[in-house]
């Protein structure tokens, strides 16, 4: 809204001022919506351009049409999607194999830790350093732990422990999946803990005390009171954590290392998709990107609010 127009004090002048103000208001709303819509275009263009390109033939369709225009009939093809699904299918399964358990376990452990550190009655003086370590762990660049992580998993005789699996016909490369579960849980705990802690500090202290007086032990209070009322927060944490783990490339790269491995996660395969001697197949890359992003996109569309809440806190 612009500055209030100055009036000369006469009745007609005041009226004109009001009218002017209204006109200014309209102009302001128009500009506002123009800005909002322009930004929408900005955010959607890369995605839209990718989507239409994924339906084009390569290289003819890709190079002879505008990148954001839908494919005309002669260049339209579903072939890239078929190839992408074929290439990424096993990766999707592999990703789900570690992302789902790692998400659930890290959320549970995060909730445990947050409960033990918020509702328990012990001195803040001793709690603070432990909390600080949890919070700081969220911000650690993973590069600082990569070499020891490789060393650690190299020295743990995980493959021997899991021998029954290999006997049952599971490819040995799946040790990588187990390693990814443990790794993602360990590094996921801090953020889950902090998210839950934010929620648990708002839980009425009197209610917990009431439950303790009702005869419930610390563990029973969690089981019967705190866990059931955490359901909304679990939704937030599970959604956020699943997105993070599914999307992460670094640990997959370090622990599984090659996209040709039978246990390769989808992001690892996608990173190398569409590269060939003849050049980059952008149509295939785009189709692959959408296939790989599908689970997180579905989660986001269905639970956008929970996701927003997760990132905001």
């Amino acid at each position, binding site marked *: 809204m612009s500055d209030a127009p100055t009036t000369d004090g006469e009745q007609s002048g005041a009226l004109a001022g009001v009218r002017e103000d209204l006109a200014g208001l309209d102009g302001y709303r128009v500009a506002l919506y123009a800005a909002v819509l322009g930004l929408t275009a900005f955010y959607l263009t890369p995605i839209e351009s990718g989507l239409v390109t994924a339906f084009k033939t390569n290289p003819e369709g890709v190079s002879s049409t505008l990148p954001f225009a839908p494919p005309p009939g002669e260049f339209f093809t579903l072939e890239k999607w078929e190839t992408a699904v074929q290439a990424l299918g096993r990766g999707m399964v592999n990703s789900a194999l570690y992302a789902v358990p790692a998400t659930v376990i890290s959320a549970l452990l995060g909730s445990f830790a947050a409960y033990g550190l918020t509702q328990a009655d012990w001195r803040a003086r001793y709690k603070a350093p432990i909390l600080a370590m949890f919070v700081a762990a969220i911000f650690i660049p993973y590069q600082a732990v990569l070499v020891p992580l490789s060393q650690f998993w190299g020295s743990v005789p995980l493959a021997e422990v899991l021998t029954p699996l290999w006997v049952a016909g599971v490819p040995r490369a799946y040790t990588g999946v187990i390693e990814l579960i443990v790794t993602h849980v360990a590094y996921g705990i801090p953020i889950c803990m902090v998210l839950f802690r934010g929620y648990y500090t708002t839980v*009425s202290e009197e209610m917990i*005390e009431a439950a*303790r*007086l*009702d*005869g*419930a032990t610390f563990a029973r209070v969690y089981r*019967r009171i705190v866990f059931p*009322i955490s359901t909304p927060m679990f939704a937030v944490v599970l959604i956020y954590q699943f997105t993070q783990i599914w999307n992460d490339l670094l640990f997959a790269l370090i622990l599984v290392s090659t996209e040709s491995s039978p246990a390769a996660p989808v992001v690892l395969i996608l990173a190398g998709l569409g590269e060939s001697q003849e050049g980059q197949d952008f149509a295939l890359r785009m189709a692959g990107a959408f296939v790989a992003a599908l689970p997180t996109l579905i989660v986001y569309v269905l639970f956008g609010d929970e996701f927003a809440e997760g990132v905001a806190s």
Partner: protein
Amino acid sequence: MARLELDDVRKVFTDDDGSDIVAVDDVSVDIADGEFLVLVGPSGCGKSTTLRMIAGLESVSGGDIRLGGRSIVNKKPQNRDIAMVFQSYALYPHMTTRQNMSFGLEESTDLSDEEIAERVENAADLLSIPELLDRKPGELSGGQQQRVALGRAIVREPEVFLMDEPLSNLDAKLRSQMRTELQRIQEDLDTTTVYVTHDQTEAMTMGDRIAVLDGGELQQAGTPLECYHRPANRFVAGFIGEPSMNFFDMDVEGDRLVGDRFEYALTDEQATAVANAGTVTLGIRPEDIAVTVGSEATADNEFPTVVDVVEPMGNENAVYLGFEADPTNPFVATVGGMRQLDADERVVARFPADAIHLFDGATGEALHNRALDEGAEVEPRV
């Protein structure tokens, strides 16, 4: 038998910087079986801390708490056989009323499901909330939640009820209704009850006895009328009663009290009581001040005054009076609701000799309390 004894109970909080805050300072109260004791005092006086120590939610820094003769200070809250009603009700939001009320029995007893259901339904009947049993707290009004919170305590059939300002979240009308109901239930169940409030109306009307706390120290424990008519000290006298007792700081000069604005003639008995004190505080309740229209003081202890403000309350008027000589710091008197007094009107106020209280100027301790007619105690004004 559940007699609850607090014996020199003390609570010291230590700040992170190492300094100590004494929240409860050697409080001793003996609560008989089935007695309804109200802990009352201004906020921060330590009443809630005392209650929480009885519940086991705060550790005890010193002294002992005995229930039925046995010390409970080293017992966990859940093993103390105590039920508590919280200010916020603290209902479990994801459980129905029935589940809320069953929870404690499930967690702390070996009762069968049928027995639990029976107890819950009996309690619901007692509180007239059987129709609410399958609703969740979110669907209940404040008053209904209050009843559920009470019900949750009742089904436990504990030795002691602890109540932490349970009515303070209700609106005025509901509060007075629940007040009566709570008393009825407590009488029916005959369970020892400790009730914390900052509201002296609740203290006066509900308690068999009240214990007045200030600054962590017990000021007086006695029946409501004792505390009203025979306050142990100036704090109790000022805290109990609404509008508050008027206080005037005076010097003792033989059988007269001399103040900045007026002098007061003492009876022989009163003069003896204050003989050893240099300064005293004269206290008189607003309803004991006799107000007559006119400007001439004709007898001792009558003072010409000017009406400052009149607050009509329907059944009575609170009249703020300033001394004619020095109208600052007016004192308050109450007169019948039908009496018409106007601001700036000149009236004579009389402080009857048998109605005044005298407190030691240095310690605040009561040196002399008002005279009471044998068997004709006036109803307390609250």
